[in-house]
């Protein structure tokens, strides 16, 4: 099962995602943003960081990177795409996921451990999460406040596209509407979330809850591959 981790020049969680994807059993490799080639990856991870410095707006320039064209085609074919933190921001900027990520309402960069409730377990990203489990993952971002106009939020909820919400005791760290921490696209094949599953990949780091998501991704991609060929 091949996983490609996209490297934008300012990505800084690319090697972390690579390490965690390999722990999850994937044959993972880095993909340079300037080359429009997924090198056979069955699932694509857009990692955290500051893709092009993000002085303008997080992810605003990355969507023009040559690789985003093939990521878009990959998604259109039903391929799996996971955007983490800055990767989530890039996916919303690229129009692959609904919503925008605004500045944290604290007006500060926020680092810390949060808890996520998992709203659906029938997606390729959450199928391995046991019933009733909340996930303990770190966050590290300045622009993670999820926003959509009310009407669209209602529609998003109705369509079952809200995948993760910030949960007690830590709660919502950034002012995201309806505590939304992660969403999927209408086909359920593209997912973005602000917390970092790849940083919660081993007990020694304080939690390995993130592996539930990454293993789900790897297994789903392998399954999809077997089915579609």
């Amino acid at each position, binding site marked *: 099962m091949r996983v490609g981790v996209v490297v934008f020049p300012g990505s800084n969680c690319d090697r*972390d995602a690579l390490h965690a994807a390999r722990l999850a059993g994937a044959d993972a490799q880095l993909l340079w943003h300037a080359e429009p080639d997924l090198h056979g990856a069955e699932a694509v991870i857009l990692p955290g960081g500051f893709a092009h410095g993000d002085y303008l707006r997080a992810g605003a320039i990355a969507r023009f990177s040559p690789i985003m064209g093939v990521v878009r085609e990959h998604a259109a074919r039903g391929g799996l795409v996971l955007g983490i933190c800055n990767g989530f921001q890039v996916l919303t900027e690229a129009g692959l996921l609904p919503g925008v990520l605004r500045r944290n309402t604290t007006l500060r960069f926020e680092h810390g451990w949060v808890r996520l409730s998992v709203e659906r377990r029938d997606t390729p990203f959450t199928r391995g999460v046991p019933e009733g489990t909340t996930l303990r993952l770190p966050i590290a971002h300045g622009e993670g406040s999820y926003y959509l106009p009310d009407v669209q939020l209602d529609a998003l909820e109705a369509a079952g596209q809200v995948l993760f919400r910030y949960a007690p005791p830590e709660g919502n760290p950034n002012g995201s509407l309806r505590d939304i921490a992660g969403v999927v696209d209408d086909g359920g094949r593209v997912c973005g979330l602000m917390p970092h599953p790849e940083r919660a990949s081993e007990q020694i780091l304080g939690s390995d809850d993130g592996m539930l998501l990454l293993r789900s991704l790897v297994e789903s991609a392998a399954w999809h591959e077997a089915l579609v060929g």
Partner: protein
Amino acid sequence: MTVVASPPPPSVEQPLHRRLGLTDDELEAIQTRLGRRPNDLELAMFSVMWSEHCSYKSSRSLLRQLPSSGPDVLAGPGENAGAVRIGGGLAACFKIESHNHPSAVEPYQGAATGVGGILRDIVAMGARPVALLDALKFGDPAKARTRALVRGVVRGVGGYGNCVGVPTVGGELAFHPSYADNPLVNVMCVGLVDEGRIASAAATGAGNLAVLYGSPTGRDGIGGASVLASASFDEGSAQMRPSVQIGDPFAGKLLIEASLELIERGLLVGLQDLGAAGLTCAAAEMADKGGSGMRVDLAAVPRREEGMEPFEVMISESQERMLAVVTPERLDEVLAVCARWGLPAAVVGTVAPDGDVVVVEDGRELARVPARALASEAVVLERVGHPPVRSRPAPAPGVPALAHDGLPERGMDPGAVLQALLGMANLGSRAWVTAQYDETVGTDTVAGGARGAAVLRLKGTPRALVMATDSLPGLALHDPRLAAAMAVAECTRNVAVTGARPLGLTNCLNFGDPGVPEAFWQLSESVRGLAEAATALGLPVTGGNVSLYNESVGARIAPTAQIGVVGVLDDIALLVGPYFRNEGDVVALLGEAGPGLSGSQYEALAGAAPEDGPPLLDLAREVALGRLLRRASAERLLSSAQDVAGGGLAVAIAECALWSGLGADLVVPVALPPAVVLFGESPGRVVVSLPAERWPDLARLAAGLRVPCRRLGSVAADRLRMRLVGVGATGAAEERGAGVADEMDEPLAELERAWRGALPRALGEAS
């Protein structure tokens, strides 16, 4: 030729060398070395290279006392950073540096570029930066200016570190009135490199090319080293803003990745970052180190502004630039790597056999100076030191003031004092700061340094890297030598409590104007204390940084020797954490309280009698304690180990409880006044917890190493209870006629409220 246009406004009567910050004696020394008068460009180059910041002219003779060698030292002072062997073919590169003056003028950019600068030092060693620690000092947090500085500096540290993806895993934040006008921003960086891949900063091989890559050169930071970092502040300081460098963390990230790729692929002969004194410094130091010369062609330097004067190009401190020496055969590959990372790169010079730094433009020779005259043979000043004149002799360390007992006299009960201490800006929770730093990027952070030492696992090995940074400025006002030695002991202890072996030490010496005898005495005493402690603990000092002139009209900072220690734990399974783990575990104290409240947080809170001296440091005891901690870790005896430092024993125990949510029920024997035992900061003490069945083993180990070890009680649920028994306590109880002063019994929730809100309250962000 025009000269430094910005600060301070040049007065017409002053000759050029003085306007550039050089003394008449230094001009004469330059003429002696050149055998002629320097031209204006040469003078500008000397002015930055002979600045205190670059030349260490006031401190160099003192620093020779520091022990710098050891079996594990791979790179020592004089290199871009120190390097020690950590096993498995890996080396840890580390260094601590200041960016104090720029941060006082422009806190965000000053702090951000401080982070950028130390990162480049580590990268220049060929190492990937894996951790940052920031040690920050400010004045009274109730003042609006202090609050603006704190917010700006913390945002700046995070702004750079978070973006480049290097976790900020620890540090220090302290407030003391002496830092009101001169805040300190010291940043430590630790990197990892294969032992055999440590990069050289030497320009060797005549005919090799000097490639400048990274951001184009602009006018920012002109004269930062000589103007900002090498003079005290006065009313004109606001005009110094143009001397502050501007950071671009995205460019910094590209520079890191490109540099590491160049080194990994073996494309470079030598590498150096451009920091203070810019191109002049990089060219001169690389040439000097390589025993060669360098010919620099100004026209080839990529610029971001037009019409720059030659001296501006040579001394600009524009950020995010590196100078690499490459063989002509490798040039194309080097340029291709830079292009891939989107970094401008140009051949700006050639290594020459003659030993001179030669600056040419369009075929015209503008300057020619021996590299060593700029670098290793820069002027050395013999400064005069004199201890401060005190109205009465300072009490000697360890002299007890038994007559003085803070607690009963003031009618305080220990629980109230503990709450007050935990609510102080200096001792409260650091969450307000650490939440603004990315601590977990890199997926190696096992423990953040807000709770003692920072611990990073080393992927693919059983090992962990352990690091800490400490200083004792409050104590240094009483006794700088003792404070420096105690900071070394404390920092080493912080690393040792995890079970790790301390391997090397870096330091950042922050002092006042070395031309003032009292300030120079503080510096020389501190270096002496540092040398004594490092020698006794067998810890090589692999590098550091000196920041002088931290004073403004009428106010000098407390002498601040900021210490950084790096160690290694060979098996991360043996890691001992700082806080309680299991209810019912035995709580014990290793070491014992000594007299002395001077310089303590208790003194800052409640005052101490003038006859009460500072605590006593027993370095032999520290060595034995370190040995005991490593043995206890190796035998898996301990559930937790926590250093006793700021706020004393009571605060150390409270932290064990607050970090874990588990309380304790303890009986504390007091042979000295209760305030001294509970809140004094005498060194050599560690609070441990362990399963009851391991207690005999620990007691036996401690007895064998002659380290006092006393069982205090056990880990309990949600209260912190301490009963005082013994000589010191009985008197107090009788005097007061009640047990109030002899016992504290605090619900953790209340301590937590005081502790958690301390910093936001102090900064006016919570009530």
